[in-house]
C-alpha cells in the first residue's frame, strides 16, 4: 500500500470505546470503519479490537459465526487489541477461563490488578521511539507470559503491557485514551507495510519506519 493513501481500518463496534479508537485512527492517518457484522470485515486493511467487556464481546461473537469469521480474518490481516481486545486475541485466558481467538502467543489473566478502584495511569519505557509512554489501565488484564516470537515493547512491574507478534499488536492499557498517538501510528504503519494479499508477508521492521 502506498504511503499516500489512507488505509481503511475496521474497529469492532459491538460495544466499548470504539469511538475513541476511531478518533485515534483518524489522527494517525487511517480511515476507521465500524464493524458490527462479519460481512463488514470484507476489504478492510486491518482491524482494531477495542477496550470494553470481553465477555460481552465474546457472547456477541458466538452468534452468527462471527467468531469464526473474525478468527479467519485475524489469521492473515494486521490486528490490534487493547484491554478486552488483547484478551480476545490471546492464546489462553484465565480468571475465568474463556474462549479466545488464539492469534497472539500469550497467556492473559483478566481483571488482574483488581477492581475499578485499582485502575491507574502509569508511565513506562517503550521500544517505540520518543521516550516513555503513558499507560491508562482500566480494570486491566495482565499478560502472564508470551511465546518466543512475541516482542515486548513496554512493561509494568516486569509484565508485558504492549506486545507485537508479526501482524498482531496488543496492549493491556488504553493508548486510545491518551493524547500520545505513537501506538496507533505504529499499527497504521504496520497495516501500510502489509501486502493487501491474504498471504502473510509481514516485514518485521515496517512498524519502525517513522512517520511523516
Amino acid at each position, binding site marked *: 500500500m502506498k504511503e499516500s493513501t489512507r488505509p481503511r481500518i475496521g474497529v469492532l*463496534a459491538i460495544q466499548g470505546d470504539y469511538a475513541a479508537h476511531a478518533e485515534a485512527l483518524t489522527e494517525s492517518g487511517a480511515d476507521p470503519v465500524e464493524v458490527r457484522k462479519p460481512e463488514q470485515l470484507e476489504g478492510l486493511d486491518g482491524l482494531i479490537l477495542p477496550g*470494553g467487556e470481553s465477555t460481552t464481546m465474546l457472547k*456477541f461473537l458466538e452468534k452468527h459465526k462471527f467468531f469464526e469469521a473474525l478468527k479467519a480474518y485475524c489469521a492473515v490481516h494486521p490486528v490490534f487489541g487493547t484491554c478486552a481486545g488483547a484478551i480476545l486475541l490471546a492464546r489462553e485466558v484465565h480468571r475465568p477461563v474463556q474462549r479466545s481467538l488464539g492469534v497472539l502467543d500469550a497467556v492473559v489473566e483478566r481483571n488482574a490488578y483488581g477492581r*475499578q478502584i485499582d485502575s491507574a*495511569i502509569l508511565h513506562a519505557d517503550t521500544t517505540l521511539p520518543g521516550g516513555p509512554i503513558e499507560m*491508562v489501565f482500566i*480494570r486491566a488484564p495482565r499478560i502472564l507470559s508470551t511465546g518466543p516470537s512475541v516482542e515486548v515493547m513496554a512493561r509494568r512491574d516486569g509484565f508485558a503491557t504492549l506486545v507485537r507478534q508479526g501482524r498482531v499488536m496488543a496492549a493491556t492499557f488504553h493508548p486510545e485514551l491518551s493524547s500520545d498517538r505513537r501506538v496507533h501510528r505504529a499499527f497504521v504503519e504496520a497495516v501500510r507495510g502489509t501486502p493487501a494479499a491474504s498471504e502473510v508477508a509481514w516485514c518485521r521492521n515496517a512498524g519502525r519506519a517513522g512517520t511523516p
Partner: protein
Amino acid sequence: MSETNGSKSFTSTSLRLKVGLAEMLKGGVIMDVMNVEQARIAEEAGATSVMALERVPAMIRAEGGVARMANPKLIKGIIGAVSIPVMAKARIGHFAEAQILQELGVDFIDESEVLTPADEVHHIDKHAFTTPFVCGARNLGEALRRIAEGAAMIRTKGEAGTGDVVHAVQHMRQIVKEMKALTVLSEQELYAAAKEHQAPYELVRMVALTGKLPVPNFSAGGIATPADAALMMQLGAEAVFVGSGIFMKERATPLDVENNPKEREEAVSRAKAIVAATTHFNDPKILAEVSEQVTGTMKGLAAAAIEESQLLQTRGW
C-alpha cells in the same frame, strides 16, 4: 498529567480513570439485578455491567417505604459471582452509603433518585471518591451541575420502574436540544447561558465548543424492550440502563429465575434481545429479528397516569 489544577480538572488522573471506565461501557446494557442468579443471567446474556439492588424501581414504586442502599452482603455476593463491573446505588446526598459502597469495591456508584433522598440540598461531593459516579439528569443544567460535583457519567432519569420510555425520550431530547443550542452562541452569550442553565460557565463553554457532554451520556428510566433501547441510542444515548424491564413479570412481581425454567428463559430472551438491539440500534432488520425472539414483556405503568408527587425524577435538582 499534572494535578496542579486540583482534582476537578478534566485532565486529572482521577477523573480520566473514572471517565475511562464509562468509555468501556459504551454501546452496552447495564442491567438491574436483585440476586446472584439474575447477575449470572445478565452476564451470560452480554450485559456490560450489573446494578446490584435489593428491589428494582418497579417494586420500590409498588411497595413504598424508604428505599436505601442494598445490603453489603448482597453486593459482595454479586461481585463474587460475575467478572463484569458491578454498580450499586446510593441515596442522593448520602455520602456515608457511598463510602461503604467504595469500600466494598463497587466499580460505579449511582447517586440515584430511585432511592429515597437523604439530603434535600446537597448532592454527594463525588470528587472526594476514587470510585466513579453516575447521576441522573432531566436537562442540561442538571447534568452539568452533577458533572461539576464530579459525576463521570450522566444518564437520563426517565421515570424508573414504569416500563414507559416517554420520559427518558423527553429528557434525552431536552439535553441534546440544549447542547445544540449552545453551539451556535457567541462567546459573550455563554455567560448568560451559564446563568440560565444554573451551571458553571467553564462546563457550559466546553459543551458549546464540542456539542456534547464532557462525560459519557447514557439513558435510563423506563426502557423495557429492544425497540426502546434502539430508540434511545438513535436519540443520542451512548449506552442504556435497563431496570425493571428484564426480570419483572407483573408490576411488583419478579420472574422466578431460580425455580421456574420457563420464567428463567423469558428473562434470558429479554436480556439477550436488548443487548443485541443496543449494538444494532441502527439496523431495523436485526431489530425486527431480536424483537421477535422476546417472550413476554414487563406489563408496565403509563407514566402519564402517575401523580406528580409520586414521580421519582423530581428528586434531585
